[in-house]
């Protein structure tokens, strides 16, 4: 997917002014933040469980080569075919090839963020395969020709009126108003798609190395349908998603839905291994697993490796005060919020996403809820360091930082400079003791006054007071 993160600042302005979006985002707090809080406490020893989850991810990442080989060997032994893709384009080529090989004309797809990286649907349409998104949110977006704005709740930016209008227009049926009616209508429209699809496409939340299985969590049941009914199943996921054992994946499943949607468990957790047996009545005859690198392997062994622990729960964005105010589209690529602000520069280019590492107050709410303990603010800070080292910061910012540091390392000069500055600011503050304009800092003063300083510094007053 094209990275439009360069447009971040302009998008922020647009999103802050979008009243419908703001209304939609206001639900994040009650549904996701409070929802998580209510069920995460069910985990008796949360700190220990998070440590264990991080350790499970690290075990794999520290020896990804051998764990991937172990997974491949097991999956192959059970009849799955494992494909390796260097780039998003490779994924598209591989999946189009699979479709051709099996004479696929229609595909039903459950949610996959990796396929969003690849814009797989467009590629398949060009290859003559009709693709139907079946996750309700993704289906709505497919109808609306929009990208997801959240990795778990893709259509969080839309309200039900917008969905009702969209369905009425696209389905040519009387406009429904209730959410349940809209869901029923989508179910009825989509059921034939499941039944008739030649190929099912899904992501995989985890790959279990012990058994060669792909694990998928879903709520709607579409994930089960697309992996049960069509004769071909293609699961697409990142190379980092391997987990050693069924026990290890159980620990992660204990955290994932609780962190994501505030559910103790998702409705369906499906562990899919190999193809249908000879006597089976259902299940795919062909099971293909596509493993995508797309920049992930270069993070291994680097100081950004911890990002690969991510299990895509979305808790970081749900709890992020920046995301809560602008939504996901402003981030410009597949992954929004704190995890996206790290992944987008890493996978899609720091030079194309200069704002993302900086658009954070380092409030730390993301790291506090991350189930696999990714130190998200630290990683954002490291990206800022890279920007500094590579000369990607504005001259003005670099100068200000260097000047401040230069001054702060010279206490006497610092004392003099601050004494002058606070006196000037005090005068400018006038009777109200407020500065309404800050030259060179309109970012602040466009929306806020600046409380004028007292006019004398603590250090000078302290010296005059004769205290030691």
């Amino acid at each position, binding site marked *: 997917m094209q990275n439009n993160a360069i447009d971040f600042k302009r998008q922020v302005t647009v999103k*802050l002014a979008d009243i419908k979006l703001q209304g939609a985002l206001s639900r994040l707090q009650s549904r996701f933040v409070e929802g998580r809080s209510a069920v995460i406490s069910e985990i008796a020893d949360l700190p220990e469980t998070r440590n264990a989850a991080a350790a499970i991810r690290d075990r794999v990442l520290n020896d990804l080569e051998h764990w991937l080989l172990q997974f491949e060997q097991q999956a192959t032994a059970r009849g799955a075919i494992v494909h390796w893709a260097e780039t998003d384009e490779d994924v598209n080529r591989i999946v189009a090839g699979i479709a051709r090989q099996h004479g696929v004309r229609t595909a039903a797809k459950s949610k996959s963020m990796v396929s969003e990286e690849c814009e797989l649907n467009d590629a398949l349409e060009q290859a003559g395969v009709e693709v139907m998104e079946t996750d309700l949110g993704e289906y709505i977006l497919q109808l609306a020709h929009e990208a997801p704005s959240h990795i778990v709740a893709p259509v969080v930016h839309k309200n039900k009126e917008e969905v009702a209008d969209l369905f009425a227009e696209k389905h040519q049926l009387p406009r429904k108003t209730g959410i349940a009616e809209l869901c029923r209508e989508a179910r009825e429209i989509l059921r034939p798609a499941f039944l008739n699809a030649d190929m099912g496409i899904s992501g995989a939340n985890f790959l279990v190395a012990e058994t060669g299985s792909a694990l998928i969590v879903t709520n709607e049941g579409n994930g089960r349908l697309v992996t049960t009914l069509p004769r071909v199943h293609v699961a697409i996921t990142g190379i980092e998603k391997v987990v050693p054992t069924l026990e290890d994946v159980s620990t992660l499943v204990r955290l994932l839905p609780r962190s994501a949607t505030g559910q103790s468990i998702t409705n369906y957790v499906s562990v899919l291994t190999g193809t249908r047996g000879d006597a089976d009545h259902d299940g795919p005859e062909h099971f293909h697993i596509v493993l995508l690198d797309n920049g992930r392997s270069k993070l291994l062994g680097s100081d950004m490796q911890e990002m690969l622990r991510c299990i895509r729960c979305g808790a970081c964005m749900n709890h992020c005060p920046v995301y809560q105010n602008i939504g996901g589209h402003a981030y410009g690529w597949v992954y929004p919020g704190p995890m996206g602000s790290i992944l987008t520069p890493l996978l899609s280019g720091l030079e194309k996403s200069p704002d993302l590492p900086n658009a*954070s*107050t380092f409030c730390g709410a993301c790291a506090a809820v991350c189930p696999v303990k990714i130190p998200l603010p630290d990683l954002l800070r490291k990206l800022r*360091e890279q920007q500094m080292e590579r000369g990607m910061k504005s001259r003005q*910012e670099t100068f200000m930082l260097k000047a401040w*540091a230069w001054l*702060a390392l010279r206490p006497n000069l610092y004392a003099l400079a601050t004494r002058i500055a606070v006196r000037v600011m005090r005068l400018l503050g006038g009777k109200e003791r407020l500065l309404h304009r800050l030259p060179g800092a309109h970012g602040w003063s466009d929306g*806020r*006054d600046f409380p004028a300083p007292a006019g004398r510094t603590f250090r000078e007053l*302290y010296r005059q007071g004769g205290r030691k």
Partner: protein
Amino acid sequence: MRVGFFVTCLVDTMRPGIGFASLKLLEAAGCEVVVPEHQTCCGQPGYNSGDHKSAEAMALKFLAEFETFDYVVLPSGSCAGMIRVHYPDLFKHDPELSARFAALGQRTYELTDFLHRIARLEKVPGTFQGTVTYHDSCSGLRELDVYRQPRALLATMPGVKLQEMVESTTCCGFGGTFSLKYGELSTRMADNKCQHITATGADAIVGGDLGCLLNIEGRLRRTGDHTTRVLHVAEVLSGEEK
């Protein structure tokens, strides 16, 4: 106990009264307080903007000035977090220095954390009368676990009624240079915070970090609220709030 007091650059320049209020509280707690004369800034602006080098230089300066004290106390959670959590991290490549910073970090406290847990201050000098609401600044809360401490201290003041706002632990949008670079977004976040403050009907919004307080006050005043007082917790506890 001998306490080195680091006033922080913001308090030094913008609101020195908070520094004197802190001294009064530390002395009330029976500490011998020393204010090293050449202190300036902890280096956080550079550190958080990716300028490691200058942050390292300032950290070394800080070490030289404060290493000899039993404790180091600051009226700011974010600067205390810088020293406790990030200084040792800055010198990971140098085990000896990193250990010295870690040891210094162990003795470094945010003011209310120190007063409540270490000095065990039970009677504060202040006599504030009125309803207050408390904003939990991010670094103090998440890096230093400062939440109960200021509330426990405020609870010792008979005249103070604490009326909690919703989402008191959500960021106010300050974030240092963030507030300048992403002014519009920062202002929106401040605005959300101000609405929560206003909804409590409190006489004063109280917090432990001047950066957040300037941000909140700036937005309150710009939106026409000239009555809600914006106070550092040290000012309330010490009775130096004027």
